[in-house]
């Protein structure tokens, strides 16, 4: 057998590998020969681990070249496991520990000390983290990028530690760190002069913070989502500051009015992205006319839930000719006239969000189809006046359409027939469209083979045949929502043989049983999220099948299933990636069953949803252990109601 490396050198192979993005393709490549494996080994820079088990082998294979390590999906990651997961010596630049609730500040301190050149750390959503963890991270003095979003206990002190320790920071996310105040932000700004991106969304900071932030000369991207204490005065500071912002997100800032937005647009002439959705609703024409001065630089504009007049859209259309994305979700004043003016000017638009623009009709779709042929994403949820006529226009003109949301639009099979012409379609959402049936799905199945995501929520007309058509045609589906499609039975489910399917929602499908689940599990081995809530007929057999076949299952909802303690214990004990389980109203499981099951999964689980009544009967020792290992328990007090 001839050695391929004689023809194709390793570095040439590595260049080929540059073009492979899909993990499956890479896996196939690795399996060709030792030479290919060697090439892949030298080429790989990043690892995202799903389980801790095989990690040491992988690390030994990739030691040296590895720069990025993502451990965010690893269950039962604690300090000792973390320290073993870091190769030594290493060249790591980036580590993600998002949601790694089992890790403590000790582990982070070790991480900071053994990765001397680490530049990016993500510890977002580790809700228990506070100042001590922030202080540990702050020891990584070369850090350029840090995300501590939703580390709920981080205060100004923790932020100050980071600010002093990591003065080279360029990107910082402190979203949802509610304890941080103006004082902390002020210090951050004084110490980290290199900041380019800052996310302080949902913080309870006021205008003083913006006054400080405005002095950051390198700041380009600022997110202020839901900062309720910020008002027009703060935006005034920003507009007169040293920073030259390119992107600002001030959505949900209730106290920001169009006066503030006007000042901002005046002062920051390099703005490329503006998200002003859900601010104080009345938008004056002065702001829109100021937007025009930004003119060609502006590429993204989101004005969700603002009261817009058609004339405002006309001004935008005439001036912002390079606009790529516009968000007009829930803007009551948007009508066909406004849309036609808008698209006549902004011909480069690729994303148009018209969610809940109730006045939009087929005329709008017609003008979009004629003017913006390059449109890729169209969100039309609840635009009840549109019909297959308009969609036909879109489908014939916008051949590059990749994503369309028609949730609750009352479209029918004809509409799907039209859309099936868009062979590039990746995302299709037709939830709540009771007119969609197997016929429509058969068109999609035949033509849209690239589809990644399909939402058929409450499309009650769909039967097993429709599902079969989809399963046969759209082999690359990653996400499928079949909630409440209650005509589908085990037969239909058995058709689901989608190797890449990772996210499946089967909520409220009362006719499916464990045998259907078993068949599905055998075909969809990559499942990571599965929702079986209110699938009343699913019992332990289904759990055994899931435990056996869907090894990567991470998130599972089995509320209302007829699972017993044995099945629960088995599935929680055997699924090695399981992290999030919702198990409310499992009437067949005894208290001992819950105890054993939770003990079996102890250390892996990060989130558990349980019936509130169990709070008192489960042993406190167990609950404490769960919590000390970073598991959050949500107690639910909903009455037991069977819906069919």
């Amino acid at each position, binding site marked *: 057998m001839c050695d391929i490396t004689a023809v194709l050198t390793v570095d040439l192979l590595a260049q080929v590998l540059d073009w492979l993005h899909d993990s499956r393709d890479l896996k196939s490549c690795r399996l060709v020969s030792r030479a290919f494996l060697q090439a892949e080994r030298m080429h790989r820079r990043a690892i995202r681990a799903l389980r801790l088990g095989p990690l040491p082998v992988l690390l030994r294979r990739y030691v040296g070249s590895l720069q990025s390590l993502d451990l965010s999906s690893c269950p039962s990651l604690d300090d000792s496991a973390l*320290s073993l997961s870091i190769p030594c010596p290493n060249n790591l630049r980036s580590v993600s520990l998002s949601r790694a609730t089992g890790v403590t500040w000790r582990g982070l*301190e070790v991480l900071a000390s053994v990765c001397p050149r680490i530049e990016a750390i993500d510890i977002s959503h580790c809700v228990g983290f506070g100042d001590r963890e922030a202080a540990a991270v702050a*020891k990584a003095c070369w850090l350029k990028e840090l995300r501590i979003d939703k580390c709920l206990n981080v205060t100004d*002190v923790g932020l100050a530690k980071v600010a002093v320790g990591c003065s080279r920071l360029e990107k910082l996310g402190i979203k949802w760190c509610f304890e941080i105040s103006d004082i902390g932000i002020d210090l951050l700004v004084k110490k980290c002069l290199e900041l380019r991106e800052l996310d302080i969304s949902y913080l309870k900071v006021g205008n003083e913070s913006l006054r400080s932030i405005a002095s950051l000369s390198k700041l380009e991207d600022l997110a202020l989502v839901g900062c309720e204490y910020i008002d027009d005065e703060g935006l005034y500071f920003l507009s007169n500051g040293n920073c030259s912002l390119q992107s600002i997100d001030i959505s949900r800032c209730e106290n920001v009015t169009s006066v503030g937005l006007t000042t901002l647009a005046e002062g920051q002439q390099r703005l490329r992205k503006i998200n002003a959705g859900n601010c104080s609703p009345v938008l004056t024409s002065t702001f829109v006319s100021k937007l025009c001065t930004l003119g060609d630089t502006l590429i993204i504009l989101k004005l969700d839930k603002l009261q817009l007049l058609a004339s405002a859209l006309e001004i935008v259309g005439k001036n912002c000719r390079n606009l790529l994305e516009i968000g007009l979700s829930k803007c009551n004043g948007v009508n066909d006239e406004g849309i036609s003016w808008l698209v006549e000017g902004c011909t480069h638009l690729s994303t148009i969000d018209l969610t809940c623009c109730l006045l939009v009709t087929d005329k709008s779709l017609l003008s979009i189809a004629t003017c913006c042929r390059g449109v890729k994403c169209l969100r039309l949820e609840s635009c009840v006046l549109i019909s297959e006529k308009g969609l036909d226009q879109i489908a014939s003109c916008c051949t590059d359409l990749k994503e369309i949301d028609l949730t609750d639009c009352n479209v029918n099979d004809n509409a799907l027939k039209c859309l099936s012409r868009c062979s590039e379609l990746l995302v299709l959402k037709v939830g709540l469209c009771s007119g969609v049936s197997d016929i429509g799905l058969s068109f999609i199945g035949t033509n849209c083979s690239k589809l990644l995501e399909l939402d058929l929520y409450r499309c009650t007309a769909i039967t097993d045949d429709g599902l079969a058509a989809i399963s046969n045609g759209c082999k690359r589906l990653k996400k499928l929502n079949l909630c409440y499609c209650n005509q589908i039975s085990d037969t239909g489910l058995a058709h689901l043989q989608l190797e890449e399917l990772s996210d499946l929602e089967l909520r409220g499908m009362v006719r499916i049983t464990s045998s259907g689940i078993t068949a599905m599990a055998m075909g969809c081995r990559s499942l990571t999220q599965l929702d079986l809530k209110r699938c009343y007929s699913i019992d332990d057999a289904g759990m055994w099948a899931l435990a056996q076949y869907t090894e990567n299952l991470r998130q599972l909802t089995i509320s209302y299933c007829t699972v017993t303690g044995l099945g629960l214990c088995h599935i929680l004990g055997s699924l090695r990636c399981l992290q999030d389980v919702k198990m409310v109203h499992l009437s067949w499981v005894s208290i001992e069953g819950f105890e054993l099951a939770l003990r079996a999964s102890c250390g892996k689980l990060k989130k558990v949803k349980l019936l509130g009544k169990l709070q008192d009967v489960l042993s406190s020792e167990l609950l404490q252990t769960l919590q000390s290992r970073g598991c959050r328990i949500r107690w639910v007090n909903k009455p037991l109601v069977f819906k069919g």
Partner: protein
Amino acid sequence: MDQKQRSSFTYPPRNNSPQESFNPNYDYPQFNSQNRTESPYTPSQFFNSQAREWDPHALLSNLSFLEQKIHQMQNIVREMIRTNEGQNCNISELTAQRQLLTTDLTSTIIQLISTAGSFLPTIRTSLLSGNAPIPQLGSSIPSASSAPSPSAYQPNPSPDYEELTKGWGENVVESAGQIQIEDLDVKEGEDVGQDGDTLPIGSYEVLQLEKEEILAPHTHFCTICGKGFKRDANLRMHMRGHGDEYKSPAALAKPAREPGSQPIPVKRYSCPFVGCKRNKEHKNFQPLKTLLCVKNHYKRSHCEKSYTCSRCNTKKFSVLADLKTHEKHCGRDKWLCSCGTTFSRKDKLFGHVALFQGHTPALPSDEVKGKNEEINDKDDSGGVGYNDGDEYLDMKGGYFSPMVNFDSFSFEGLDEFSRTTFDPTENSFSFLRSGSPDFARKGPGN
């Protein structure tokens, strides 16, 4: 020379009661300065002893003497009033009485000033020079014939003294019939004592006090009991306890400046510590504004911090007031910097951190953690460098050197370390954990 000048004063013997040196039936016209000169106790002795050690007994006897003298003068004035009413006096006799009274009042005042001034180290030096004309005053008494104002007796009076005596003379002349002369005198005397420092040169005058003077605890002394005060106002309040005569509004009022006198020049102070920025020799000399500033500055900058906070046992102060201020919020300073400085307010700490390179706010439980850590480190892993002291050092150094820790780092140690923490739970669930991946147990070969 001082000795000679002062010899004209009569002071009571230190150990004798005032009555011995004072004759109740003392006949004023027979008053003879020679008697005083013959007194075995010379003022110089008295002053010298005062300079060395403060003697309350001497002070008390002095004051009693003065008190009796004032009573005597009161008698004379009453006598004068009586003779005036009787219309049987001749003019020359009355004039002679007035002159004698004037002379006597003058000497009383000077004695009073000396008594008070001897306790004021800062004032004493200038007072001594101001006392130069006194012997002439004393010696001129017998021959005094016509001059109503004592200034006439002074060939070379210093401006201050002239001012004093002039004002005093007028007062006496105008208020000869009034009772409360002595109150006025006391007030005037104090005033002079304070003014004795001033010499108007330039925009402000730089004064430099000696170390001992700065460190003297008090600057205002009760002329009756000798108790010292830091503020004249407090002294005036204290004086009320010594009799009704001190309770008059005039006595209690703030000593007023003479309306006609020249404006008081601005005074500034220099720190005696050579090399200090507050010393007048320093090229960027920054004068101190008040005497209190001098005192506090000198104590804070050049003295040992002898007051230790009894609560925290760490903070030391050289000014008692600083300690008291600290004690008010000691223990409530929850905002701690890595340099050890504490703050009662978060914004102050953050301002401090912003100002100094490498300083960070310390975590609230650092101390507690440090203690626990020590024990843990001994028990579990010597290899892992968890040490809070290091943290401070690193921060102070401005950067963190990971390579050091990296080399000495031991995975085994950490594993052991963190497992010990979780041991109880580990054991209780071991029976169920076989199905789940136990990474630590299976090891890297898995």
